[in-house]
């Protein structure tokens, strides 16, 4: 029953560029979740991956508004520029923001803070409590498989049991673009629409789509200390230790997370195009360069993910 009016096209035609192919895959994932889950939520920190994720999500449902809320797990130790960006973005887009506060978890006695350590790991409890409280059944995260070796093996639809745990050895096979989001009440699915994007793809897309980011992704002057061979910005929660010299440096951030465990890199890249040149030439991964939290052990991320981390 072949339609005789349709001729095969010329070879080479009808080929999507790599960025459009990745975008299309992500749009498909967003729509799949919106169509099959009751209460999805998108994790939005103001970091570049979550900004790109939100941008693609809007495209997926246009001209309708986003059919789900966004949530920020707030450690209370944020860069003020990022919080300002977060609030401005959700207001401009008219999306509902849920803030899950680590400070509130500490005040409620759900977690206890160890002096001198980052609040990064405490986020897991806050995140899981918020998922339970709001009965979210699908949680979009901006994690990419090129970031880290445990993430390289995680599914796009990643099942979490009633304790929010990930079991890396018992994952559902994921074939073609057929996703299995089935779960019992109390369980949920983490969904990673940007799984197949790389750091360079993210930056090329930001440049191509002219997406706004918090200013600290671009080169600026800042007071820092060199700690464990990383540049930590001085702020309310990061003060120079004895013997540490305060430097003023031209820096930018490759990742933006908790201010106490996210480091800056020396850089003069002030535009997305300049960042692309820098990222294309870099020889250090973004987590290796800037995340104190991933340096604990070979399996730091794997261990945190099993407990329910992002």
């Amino acid at each position: 029953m072949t339609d005789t009016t349709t001729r095969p096209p010329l070879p080479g035609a009808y080929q999507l560029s790599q960025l459009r192919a990745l975008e299309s895959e992500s749009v498909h994932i967003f729509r799949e979740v919106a169509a099959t889950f009751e209460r999805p939520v998108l994790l939005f920190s103001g970091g570049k991956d979550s900004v790109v994720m939100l941008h693609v999500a809007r495209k997926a449902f246009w001209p309708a508004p986003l059919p789900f809320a966004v949530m920020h797990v707030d450690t209370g130790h944020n860069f003020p520029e990022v919080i300002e960006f977060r609030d401005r973005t959700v207001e401009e887009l008219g999306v509902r923001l849920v803030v899950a506060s680590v400070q509130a978890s500490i005040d409620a006695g759900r977690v206890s803070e160890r002096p001198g350590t980052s609040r990064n790991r405490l986020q897991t409890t806050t995140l899981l409590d918020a998922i339970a409280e709001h009965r979210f059944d699908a949680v979009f995260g901006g994690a990419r498989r090129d970031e880290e070796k445990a993430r390289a093996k995680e599914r796009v639809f990643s099942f979490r049991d009633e304790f929010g745990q990930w079991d890396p050895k018992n994952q559902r096979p994921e074939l073609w673009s057929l996703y299995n989001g089935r779960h019992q009440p109390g369980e949920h699915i983490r969904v990673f629409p940007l799984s197949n994007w790389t750091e360079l793809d993210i930056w090329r897309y930001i440049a191509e789509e002219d997406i706004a980011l918090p200013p600290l992704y671009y080169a600026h002057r800042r007071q820092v200390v060199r700690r464990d061979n990383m540049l930590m910005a001085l702020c309310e929660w990061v003060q120079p230790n004895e013997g540490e010299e305060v430097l003023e440096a031209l820096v930018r951030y490759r990742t933006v997370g908790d201010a106490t465990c996210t480091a800056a890199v020396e850089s003069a890249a002030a535009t997305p195009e300049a960042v692309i040149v820098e990222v294309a030439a870099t020889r250090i991964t973004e987590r290796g360069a800037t995340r104190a939290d991933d340096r604990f052990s070979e399996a730091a991320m794997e261990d945190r993910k099993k407990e329910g981390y992002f």
Partner: protein
Amino acid sequence: MELLRFATAGSVDDGKSTLIGRLLFDSKAIFEDQLEAVEQASLRRGEATNLALLVDGLRAEREQGITIDVAYRYFASPARSFVIADTPGHVQYTRNMVTGASTADVALILIDARNGIVEQSRRHAFLASLLRVPHLVVCVNKMDLVGYDQDVFDAIVAEFRAFAMRLEITDLSFVPVSALVGDNVVHRSASMPWYEGSSLLHHLETVHIASDRNLIDVRFPVQYVIRPRDDSVHDYRGYAGQMAGGVLKPGDEVVVLPSGWPSTVAAIETYDGPVAEAFAPMSVTVRLADDVDVSRGDLICRRHNQPHVGQDVEAMVCWMAEGSLRAGARYAIHHTTRAARAVVKDLAYRLDVNTLHRDESASDLGLNEIGRISLRTTAPLFYDEYRRNRATGSFILIDEATHATVAAGMMLDPSHGG
């Protein structure tokens, strides 16, 4: 720049991890801190720098020295971006390779030049052909250990070609390499002047994938209905989805399945504006000229080019779970954007993936086994033969009690035997 997805199959013994490590290293996709971590881990284990450790992600894998799961890796050359689905060769090999191959443009099979073609090589070639991976590249590795001998390479090529005749492989290439030394991986080797082909990377950069997709049969499974409740666009009704085949244009006369209602494509829209043509794998929103009832799971196609419609499906399946598949069992089925329930009416045979022998006396399929089954579904499916369209010819079966994905299926033409 284009995206190319390839799946690698083989075990550590074939040098697969070393080959991937070499590909990443020579194309400068390995970062210094990753290499340093691998060097430190190798030192602690008392080994020379072991590039395979780059590929082993999880703690359990490092502890047991095995690869458990499919790992995805990324690198780019100036010509193309690559996604590697790296599948382990031993534990759960079939399930993992089927998963990796399901989205691959190219399958890469490793053969140790010293051992020649072994059972595993045949199995990998068969799975690549079953999953309809359009291009197969056989890397004959460890050429340095056979003195770069052309006769060794030629003999393996001849034997593999003879075996591949029994399979449906449309594009088959061979590259003699040494992953350890780097011969013919990224750069052409000076040690094998008799080889006139390109390096593996050059082959991956230039293999023609544009015509692999089905651009003939228009298939648009409706994924989500976009209907803003905003007053400014209150009568907007768009059908969102990802093109699964063919080229769809505004003005095309179409029908909606299962209702069979005819209509015309009024517009194909995206956030970035309307498009003149949509083709796979574009995600778009289709608007129809008529107010017909369309919902998720429906399929839009051309009036004179429709898929098979039916509740009886013949398929090859790979069983991916503990326990076994038997006639009479019931599962949930996911096919394109459609979900239904299915009962296994019959297991026609179990296929021996090493010999291709069909065991018609088989009464069940166990973990990692492949067979031909008949299904009856609770609702009609709109499908094509898998060999004609991987998107509309594939499905998964889900255990309704555990919600585990238990089988991957490739649909056959209902009117043919075989």
